[in-house]
């Protein structure tokens, strides 16, 4: 909880810079992978803005890049909102822990809202209507479909500006109680990460114990689920956490271990 609110000698973002964040947010998934999900592309999208904010402060830029290279998985139209918000905090010299804590806390809920709107509301409606044209062979179907999504892409710019404006307003308040806010943000962040572990990490044991010739008990249902649901994902995450924190094992090793384990256990029919 370091608090150094009196240091912000940082560059100012213009309206155009913020709009550019919206445009560059298209690269959010550029380096999509299971370990950090969108983190690489996310960082890339705000990189020009970060460069402007930190100017010649290489150390600050490096810290900001590292801070942003954390697990990130949000809806692609919610991303520019969060990017705009984050950049207004960076611009105002908030502490790293406050910024990173808020981002981690917000991306999950925003993903939920964004997915509900874009994938489960807009897409079915647009697809449903345009498909009815297309089935008759009318070019209007694909044409309208295309135009809707070009408009959706352009919306990323005002979305980024919305986030940026929200951040600038929030900053004033945050400034006053920097350490306390950072503490509260960590509370929120850790609560949400707990939820993320339960929803994203999936381990289900398939093995069954044969009781009689015809009857068998599922280990997952009879044993693990009765202790606590998702206990294996939690246990495995803590095991990895222990290896990373205490034994300094590199994440690449952990990925390889996970992979080999998954394939062997699949072959054995355990998972």
């Amino acid at each position, binding site marked *: 909880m370091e608090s150094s609110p009196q240091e912000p000698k940082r560059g100012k973002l213009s309206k155009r810079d913020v709009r550019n964040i919206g445009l560059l947010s298209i690269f959010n998934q550029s380096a999509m992978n299971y370990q950090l999900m969108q983190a690489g592309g996310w960082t890339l999208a705000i990189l020009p803005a970060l460069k402007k904010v930190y100017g010649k402060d290489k150390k600050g830029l490096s810290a900001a890049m590292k801070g942003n290279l954390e697990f990130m998985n949000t809806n692609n139209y919610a991303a520019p909102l969060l990017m705009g918000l984050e950049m207004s905090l960076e611009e105002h010299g908030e502490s790293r822990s406050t910024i990173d804590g808020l981002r981690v806390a917000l991306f999950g809920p925003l993903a939920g809202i964004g997915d509900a709107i874009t994938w489960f509301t807009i897409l079915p409606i647009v697809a449903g209507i345009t498909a009815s044209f297309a089935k008759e062979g009318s070019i209007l179907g694909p044409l309208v479909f295309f135009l809707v999504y070009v408009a959706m892409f352009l919306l990323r710019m005002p979305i980024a500006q919305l986030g940026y404006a929200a951040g600038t307003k929030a900053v004033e308040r945050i400034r006053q109680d920097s350490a306390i806010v950072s503490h509260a943000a960590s509370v929120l962040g850790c609560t949400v990460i*707990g939820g993320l572990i339960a929803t994203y990490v999936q381990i289900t044991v398939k093995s069954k114990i044969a009781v009689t010739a015809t009857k068998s008990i599922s280990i997952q249902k009879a044993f693990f689920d009765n202790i606590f649901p998702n206990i294996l994902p939690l246990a495995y995450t803590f095991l990895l956490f222990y290896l990373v924190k205490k034994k300094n094992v590199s994440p690449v090793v952990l990925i390889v271990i996970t992979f080999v384990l998954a394939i062997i256990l699949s072959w054995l029919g355990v998972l």
Partner: protein
Amino acid sequence: MTISLGQGLIVSLFAIIAGADFWLEGFYIFRPMIVCTVTGFLLGDLRLGIVAGGLTELAFAGLTPVGGTQPPNPIMAGIMTVVLAYTTGHNPATAIGLSLPFSILMQYIILFYYSAFSLFTRKMMEYANKAETKKFTWLVLTPTFIVALTYGVFTFLCVYAAQAPMSHLVNAMPGWLSHGFEIAGGILPAVGFAMLLKNMLKNQYVPYLLLGFTAACFIKFGNLMPVAVIGIALALIEFARAKKDRDMNKKMRDIEENANNGGDNDGI
């Protein structure tokens, strides 16, 4: 009708663009509606493309890449539906079913990339550490190029060079191997969370992690909103408490200071 080399190449070129678009979820030209229409146009049968687009789009409406999951690939489904309808003379609805093996194979390739690209992260951190923005930019863009190129090659193989062997390959992949990939995909986020916790999880925050975990286990809901609201409630409680503590400490310090000054100026 058969596909000429020229048609094979130009459809593959389109697959490269649509593939990059699907990877980035940019302009939604990766949806079957657009993919089928364009493929039909490129093959010289626009009407077939549009009709197939409507059918395939509806078939794929529920299959969305939400939360980092991968549905059967909409691009390959779109392209192959049109190509198979064009070459075999089947109606588009039947062709959708025939296109599924291609679409599933591409899904596995993307899943493999999701895992494989995890290997890029270490180098990313290294460049971030040195604030080498140019190298970082190229590194982050590399997966997109790899994916786009894969689409091009894969499409060319499916459309022109080797339709039959391709669908055989899908059926020949041993179940335990593809299942193993699927499982690994389900477990790998744990690595990301472990890295995240390394930086965030101090002992005093462990209770909140457990609370969030438990809440998510028992509140069955489409997204993490309830957990986030619980988190916000906890954060507000902590915020108020910490603020009170700070004010209290300040008061105590004031009193202490006054006491040290001899207490003669407040007359107690």
